[in-house]
């Protein structure tokens, strides 16, 4: 589904991605982790072309992201993305947030979009909040709406960019529950996250990044039980002992 081959990226003279290669197969959940500044957010934003990369190729469902001829909006419409800071549109209510791209991008009617939106709000347990504005919701509720918004586009895969990092601890669970359920239904997911419990439960593989490099790309069990590199060991001991 997602193929990342030898991707490098420079900002001026600083290299933020160094020859990164990995893949996410259909129905697979892959967790990307690593210390801050390791390039994991940049990598996931390259997958739907929000960030340009300097070298290498990324294909999603066979379509090359870096190819200037690719219709990026069309590709992005099929790839769901969830952001660290939710990024709901604050001037629209919850249902309007869900309907916007369905109408403008997929060409669905307002009614179709609303029906689909309400069904997804039901699923994330927020049907009652459809008429509220994002500023009136808690962080956890906003992030669930953001997930519903991405799902409303019927994506072929989902990208999560640290979806729980901006949340108060008591709200992390409600968001992870939605993500776990999604994974169990067979959604293809690439998740940048530090939630190692989530990784253990649903991830097929864990990709560990540091300084723009993919240091380790291992099946989940192997990664946690016997990390191959010293950097991954150090990272794991830091993150698990907190």
């Amino acid at each position, binding site marked *: 589904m997602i193929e990342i081959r030898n991707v490098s990226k420079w900002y001026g003279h600083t290299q933020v991605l160094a020859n990164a290669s990995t893949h996410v197969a259909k129905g697979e959940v892959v967790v990307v982790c690593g210390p801050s500044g390791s390039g994991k957010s940049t990598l996931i*934003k390259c997958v*739907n072309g*929000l960030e340009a990369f300097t070298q290498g190729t990324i294909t999603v469902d066979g379509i090359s992201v870096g190819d200037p001829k690719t219709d*990026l*909006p*069309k*590709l*992005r*419409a*099929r*790839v*769901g*993305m969830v*952001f*660290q*800071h939710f*990024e*709901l*549109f*604050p*001037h629209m209510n919850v249902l309007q947030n869900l309907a*916007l*791209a369905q109408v*403008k*991008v*997929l060409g669905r009617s307002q009614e179709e979009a609303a029906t689909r939106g309400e069904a997804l709000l039901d699923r994330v347990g927020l049907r009652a909040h459809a008429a*509220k*504005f*994002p*500023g*009136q*919701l808690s962080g956890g509720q906003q992030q669930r709406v*953001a997930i519903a*918004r*991405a799902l409303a*586009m019927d994506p072929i895969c989902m*990208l999560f960019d640290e979806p729980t990092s901006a949340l108060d601890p008591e709200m992390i669970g409600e968001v992870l529950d939605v993500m776990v359920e999604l994974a169990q239904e067979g959604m293809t997911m690439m998740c940048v996250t530090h939630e190692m419990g989530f990784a253990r439960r649903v991830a097929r593989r864990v990709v560990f990044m540091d300084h723009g490099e993919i240091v380790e790309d291992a099946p989940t069990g192997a990664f946690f039980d016997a990390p191959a590199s010293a950097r991954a060991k150090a990272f794991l001991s830091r993150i698990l002992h907190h």
Partner: protein
Amino acid sequence: MNYHWNWGIFLEPVKSGDETYLDWLITGLGWTLAVSLTAWLLALTIGIAVGALRTTPSRLLVGLGNVWVELFRNVPLLVQMFLWFFVVPEFLPRDWSLWVKQEMPAKEFVTAAICLGLFTSARIAEQVRAGVGSLPRGQRDAALALGLTLPQAYRQVILPQALRIVIPPLTSEFMNVFKNSSVAFAIGVLELTFQARQMQEDSEQGIETYLAVTLLYFICAFTANRGMAWIEARTRVPGLIARSG
């Protein structure tokens, strides 16, 4: 020097005709409103477009937007009035030039409205650019990630938010338009300041004249201010102010 007050002056006829001075001031107010409102609409349309262009990833568009703003910001408005009125027609093709000089209806008004509109558009562009710049970058990413094109993202997501943010500075720009429209007297638009000078010379009751005109400008500014406050209240989004960063 002693001043001879005459508050009845407004109802007296002007020296060279059967209008009263009040008629002059009413005409003046009419042209002030016409110039200001036309200029404001022009300024909003162009200013928002130019301001938005200055935030796009295209260096060419950003550069053009910057040139636009610098051109209009660094020449006095009065000189711009003269440029539009006397100089620009000379640079048009011969037929157009003749038409503009001889046949264009309400030439002074059209020139003043265009001039003031473009002048103000540069100032609005600056506000809009700042407004867009103050939005979190993730908003643009989120819009694009949903498959919206960049123009769609601006129309649906970025500008509706940025414009709400810039309503307070736009309010003072709107009030400035009324004040700046006074410069149009210099190219012969019969607006309030033109009429004030004319009435002062004709009636020699300068203080009454200027007091009346000052009051009228006050009313314009006040109405503009209330109007924008009404728009601000109507477009307010619940919970938006509570949201930080």
